[in-house]
């Protein structure tokens, strides 16, 4: 094993050397890449406490460094690929604009639609839970619809609800509804017969059983759907803006910046989308941890 690894690194060093003959810039990029890889391999093989988060961070920084170095050394035009430093500068310089876009798309469009859509899905799931007929009818339809390209309804919603955030929220409602519905219906079945029998021996009514046993038992399933829906909500809100929007919003900014070829602005907007997406997911995952602390998957 050891011999195999060192031979691999020799090949890498040879590649750097060969590149140096033709193009010193290429050699520099290759050396940076292979050096970082070597460092990461060392840390990963060493094990211990630190590397859990250190290795992915080094990898991410390496990608950024390679990107920066490549763009600078080869003089890549900023209308094709702006350097990370240029994007960071643009991000810092246009914080108010980015914040306004985030409020419009992330909070007004995506979050409103998310809350309405998930709320409606949970309510529907509780309602159809009592009817086996409706479940057998709605679930295949719901599963089918969940696989469809629902963002396509964006132009219709823009026509119905206008250019502002209401139409984006409507798209989001439809997008998040079915994944949450399917998961919630599965969750309501998750309590065991023994547990339901216990509730029956307590002479618990339907609603008492629902609130004290079946809703808590459904939470792990519900949060599974809610986590899937966070990404869908942001995608829906951003893409719906490509079909018409007021002059604010993440999707609008991306579309408008393309016309001006200011790619650094688009990348800054994508950074906002990435941060918003991870934060949104993180918040839902955090709530999940607090709500389903009893579930085996949360054990350490």
């Amino acid at each position: 094993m050891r011999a195999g690894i060192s031979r691999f690194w020799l090949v890498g060093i040879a590649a750097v050397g060969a590149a140096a003959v033709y193009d010193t810039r290429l050699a520099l990029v290759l050396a940076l890449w292979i050096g970082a890889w070597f460092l990461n391999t060392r840390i990963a093989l060493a094990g211990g406490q630190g590397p859990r988060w250190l290795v992915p961070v080094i990898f991410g920084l390496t990608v950024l460094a390679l990107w920066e170095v490549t763009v600078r050394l080869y003089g890549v035009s900023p209308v094709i690929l702006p350097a990370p430093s240029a994007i960071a500068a643009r991000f810092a310089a246009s914080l108010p604009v980015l914040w306004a876009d985030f409020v419009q798309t992330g909070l007004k469009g995506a979050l409103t639609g998310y809350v309405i859509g998930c709320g409606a899905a949970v309510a529907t799931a509780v309602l159809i839970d009592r009817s086996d007929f409706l479940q057998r009818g709605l679930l295949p339809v719901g599963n089918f619809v969940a696989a469809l390209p629902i963002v396509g309804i964006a132009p219709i919603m823009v026509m119905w609800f206008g250019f502002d955030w209401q139409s984006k929220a409507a798209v989001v409602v439809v997008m998040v509804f079915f994944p949450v519905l399917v998961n919630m219906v599965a969750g309501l079945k998750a309590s065991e017969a023994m547990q339901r029998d216990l509730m029956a021996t307590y002479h618990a009514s339907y609603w008492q059983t629902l609130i004290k046993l079946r809703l808590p038992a459904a939470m792990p399933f519900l949060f599974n759907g809610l986590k899937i829906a966070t990404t869908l909500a942001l995608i829906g809100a951003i893409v719906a803006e490509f079909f018409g929007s007021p002059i604010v919003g993440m999707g609008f900014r991306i579309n408008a910046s393309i016309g001006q070829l200011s790619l650094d602005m688009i990348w800054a907007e994508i950074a906002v989308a990435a941060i918003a997406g991870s934060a949104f997911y993180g918040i839902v995952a955090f709530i999940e941890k607090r709500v389903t602390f009893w579930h085996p998957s949360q054990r350490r």
Partner: protein
Amino acid sequence: MRSLFPVLAVLAAIVALWYGAAVRMNSQWTYDQAARAGVEVSLGAVVADTLSQERPVLPAPHQVAKGLWDGLFGQKVTSKRSLVYHGWVTLSATLLGFAIGTVMGIALAVGIVHNRAMDMSVMPWAIASQTIPILAIAPMIIVVMNSLGLQGLVPKAIISAYLSFFPVVVGMVKGLRSPDAMQLDLLKTYNAQPREVLTKLRLPASMPYLFASLKVGVAASLVGAIVGELPTGAVAGLGARLLSGSYYGQTVQIWAALFAAAIVAAGLVMIIGVIERAMLKRMGLVR
């Protein structure tokens, strides 16, 4: 089969609701027209009119069906108005991108399973990328590729590949790790090389996981191809039909394109499902 009747009942209810909504939402225009002409209209005339308007707020199901039928079979498949033509433009980009994304995803997953450094460096990012609305970069890819001289199929396929890539990586890594220690130990006692462990144990064991991710991936690929058609300004493809329909208020056209996209998506998922069932049956994995 037990649920065939309930499904049909639900579908019938949806169609009935749809008709009701169409009458309600389109009646405003009818009343406005009548008021402008200074005539009273009877309820029957209103209903008849709302279901046959040229540009309704909500087209009735039969109008959409007619639009879809005209688009699919009403003209030559090479016509610019044919949904077969536009569907093929989108489908070809989807399939090319899906193939690229799947192959690269499987390759990366194999690398991740065999190389600890790669696992620790890449895997957290692959998982984190699932929470990010990657689709937002689609317009930029299209325009940048355009300025590099690449047009048409390839840029859309790249977006499709990118979107199907991460689900495949995450699912495949899970699948390749699914054989338990006992099975891996058995192969060790046979003195199997890592390569043989991969082809004889890990790859077969990963198939159920692979197909689950493929279904997610192909749906994402199609969405990617459709969104990739938006920024070029409605040239060809189902996304272009959606966009031009929304420019000119052609609601029937939008709905027909939407249903065509739904048919394509359902068809793709179904094909993968059939292959999955056949393959798992051959492998004796079917439940």
